[in-house]
């Protein structure tokens, strides 16, 4: 019957985002009763190494919410072409259009709302699917009622939407919450963007939201203006349901700077709108030709993929624990525990697109073998690119491509550099003062050279069309002699030694030292 369209990203937009979003997702799912109903969440521009927002809070969602939710992930690289036009990190119109394009065509209605809304049917037991199924074609809005932060934060159990809706019915009377704020036509009500129900056919006919609106605010009013023209009127569903907004202004969100807030031009996008249509984006709205990844919370979850990958690559531990040490006298010892380290490496890559191709510079053959198994087990389809310059590594693994570094670097979306000792045996104790052999030294020297080259030339060696810097993952680069090398070239956080892994994008160090480092890297000096 209807597709709910929401958007956001895995960040901290406003006060206690995680709680109000979970409350809202669960409450929206609670009022769905048609098998075609769906919640489309566009996760816009979440950093590559983060899970999507719904994945991050999945444990707080009900089974029903997980079942009806489709997460459409828009990658930072897909947003990159718009970055210079806006101060915002998540774009409403693009997000909503991406979801609209990919919404279930069986659904008659599209409902635009936000991740802090609860919709309460006035007749208990009636679903929103029932309501929308019974009303004639039109463009419907409802007024938004505010819910003080104390109430939703203190009293709602995010996994009990039925009780939350019941509480709202009670509070609305006890605390006089229901105040309709009328507004000029075509908006009809204040805060109209929290409930705009339009026919899917109508939204396609008017070419979706206006994607020129990249500065935030008024996207809802623009839609109201255009749909009011298209339909001739704005209808209400106030007799059918009430909408409550979890107020979150204790902390201003990123797009709220008081009177200094940058906004889309009201005259252009509301008061001088002259047509419902957007012919300039008729063929491009919602990015029809762009592959948008879809993530489900009820199947093939990140956890399932992660464990499938590791189970394929490593056997369970046979001892209660193992040991290592970060004492300074062991600074030159590059031995490390691969089965312990691999989960942290996989953790760094899991959130990347499945089609990602990774360039692996490594010393240990067992690292490449194990990672290749995990990579496949996690469902990745991209190629593992292993430079010929890295000697002693396997060349016959499925999904692994060998070739000259200069050829492979242009195909890589991600880099892994593993600094270990090629001669380390699987049963060898780690960090006992082991010195590198001449073979190890030779391979490490080559690896360091490739690493410097890769970071220094990252910008000009990106695959065709790629705009954003690629990420480097360093394995076994904490508190050993490759720590300075890695962190000189890559802007990585401080990570616990135990994880053995650092990651980041190439540093842009404008100092003389930074320039020298880049020069040396570029020219392999």
């Amino acid at each position, binding site marked *: 019957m209807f597709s709910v369209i929401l958007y956001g990203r895995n960040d901290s937009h406003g006060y206690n985002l995680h709680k109000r979003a979970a409350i809202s997702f669960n409450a929206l799912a609670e009022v769905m009763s048609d098998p075609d109903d769906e919640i489309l969440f566009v996760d816009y521009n979440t950093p590559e190494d983060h899970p999507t927002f719904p994945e991050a809070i999945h444990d707080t969602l009900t089974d029903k919410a997980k079942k009806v939710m489709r997460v459409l992930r828009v990658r930072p690289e897909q947003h990159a072409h718009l970055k210079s036009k806006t101060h915002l990190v998540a774009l409403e119109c693009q997000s909503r259009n991406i979801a609209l394009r990919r919404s279930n065509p069986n659904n008659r209605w599209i409902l635009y709302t936000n991740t802090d809304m609860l919709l309460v049917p006035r007749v208990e037991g009636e679903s929103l699917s029932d309501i929308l199924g019974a*009303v*004639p*074609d*039109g463009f419907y809005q409802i007024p938004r009622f505010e819910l003080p932060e104390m109430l939703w934060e203190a009293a709602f159990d995010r996994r009990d939407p039925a009780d939350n809706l019941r509480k709202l019915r009670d509070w609305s009377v006890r605390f006089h919450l229901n105040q309709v704020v009328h507004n*000029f*036509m*075509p908006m009809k009500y204040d805060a109209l963007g929290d409930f705009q129900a339009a026919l899917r056919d109508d939204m396609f006919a008017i070419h979706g939201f206006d994607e020129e609106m990249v500065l935030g605010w008024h996207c809802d009013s623009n839609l109201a*203006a255009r749909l*009011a*023209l*298209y*339909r*001739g*009127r704005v*209808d*209400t569903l*106030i*007799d059918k349901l009430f909408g409550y907004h979890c107020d979150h202004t204790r902390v201003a969100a990123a797009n709220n700077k008081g009177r200094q807030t940058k906004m889309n031009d009201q*005259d252009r996008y*509301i*008061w*001088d*709108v*002259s*047509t*419902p249509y957007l*012919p300039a984006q008729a063929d491009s709205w919602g990015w029809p030709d762009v592959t948008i990844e879809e993530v489900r919370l009820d199947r093939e979850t990140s956890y399932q993929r992660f464990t499938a990958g590791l189970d394929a690559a490593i056997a369970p531990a046979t001892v209660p624990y193992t040991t290592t040490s970060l004492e300074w006298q062991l600074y030159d010892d590059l031995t490390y525990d691969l089965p312990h380290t691999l989960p942290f490496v996989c953790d760094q890559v899991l959130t990347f697109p499945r089609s990602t191709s990774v360039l692996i510079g490594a010393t240990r053959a067992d690292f490449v073998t194990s990672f290749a198994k995990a990579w496949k087990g996690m469902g990745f389809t991209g190629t593992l690119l292993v430079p010929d310059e890295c000697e002693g590594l396997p060349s016959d693994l499925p999904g692994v491509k060998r070739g000259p570094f200069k050829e492979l670097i242009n195909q890589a979306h991600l880099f892994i550099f593993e600094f270990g000792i090629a001669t380390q045996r699987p049963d060898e104790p780690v960090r006992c003062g082991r010195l590198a052999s001449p073979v190890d030294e030779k391979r490490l020297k080559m690896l360091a050279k490739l690493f410097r080259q890769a970071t220094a030339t990252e910008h000009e060696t990106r695959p065709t069309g790629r705009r954003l810097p690629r990420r480097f993952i360093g394995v076994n680069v904490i508190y050993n002699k490759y720590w300075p090398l890695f962190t000189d070239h890559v802007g990585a956080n401080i990570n616990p030694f135990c994880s053995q892994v650092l990651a980041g994008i190439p540093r842009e160090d404008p100092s003389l030292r930074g320039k020298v480092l880049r020069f040396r890297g570029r020219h392999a000096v």
Partner: protein
Amino acid sequence: MTDVGILSKLSESLRVKWRERSGPNRKAGDGKPKADTEADKLFLRARVIARSGDIDMALRLYADAAALSPQFDAAVEAQGELLDLAGRREAAMAKYAEARRIRAAMRQGAPDRPFAVRHRGNFRAEVSSYDTVLGSLKKNALPYIARGNAYLAGGKPAQALLDYEHALKLKPGLLDVQAIKAEALLAMGKYDEALTTIDAVVTARPSDSEALSTRSVALMGLGRLDDANADLNRQLALLPTSQATARACIALRLAAYELAHAELDSVIAKHPEDAYWRLYQATARLRLGQPLTAAQAATPDSWPALLLSFLFGRASEEEVLAQADSDGRRAEAWFQFGAHQVAHDPESAKRRWRQIVDYAAPSMIEHAAARNELKRIGA
């Protein structure tokens, strides 16, 4: 006496006066334009009274407005809103449901026509809302355009034209407004002027399918059938196959029944409840010499199902005409009479179709189809 009290008292006397003027035996719909105007006035008065807090008086005024103009959904919905505010939930819900029934029963204009002329119903509430906006925002185009559209949909093209011209003064050369201005001119029967206006739009936007529709109507009104057909064909070529309803309408205008029949198959699959599509499919089958199927039959008690019954031989011309209570319905009836007669009595069919050309609005599907039928049989 407070100001509110004076207002209520005045409203009550106005209400009584209007009732008396309407007469004891007045039938709903008699003298419709005047009744609509009176209903509009009552509606506006009710709004003011409602804001002043006299809910009972406002309810009475809204009820009177709805009684005068039974299609006045906004007056019915406003009663619902007031009853809801007063805590009379069940009565309120009934009024909201009634307003939606009125709206649902209102068939939108043909989907191949521009959006602004597809709206049907009473748009007094919208006019009033945009009046309010214009009290504060006088230099922006949208309120004028939206109010103009409401006037146009409410059958007041002259007032619509004033608003469109005002919008064009504010934003000279706005093609979107010129396009709907041309529609207002068409509704006023000013085909020449409409053609000049829409020509400028089509020249600037040759792929604007709605503008082509407007121009085809202007040309149809001027009797330039070949030019009108050329625009219809261009419009058809621009519309994707996903817009089957619009494509079917254009095919019907062109009397291109094979195409119409094919498009109507998918239209009916999507809108099985709409008797017009089944009627038009039956018409297409009839004109293609194909037998009518039982699936196209419908209960004969409502329009346009009665026309279907006529095609099936279950209703007479007299019975059909008895229910053809508007110019549009009469044109629809004449067209079906012609389609039914053409095989065995072409002269009668010609007469029927000629009637349409002479009396029906050129924006009607039947008008264009009748012209094309007449051309085809050499009349």
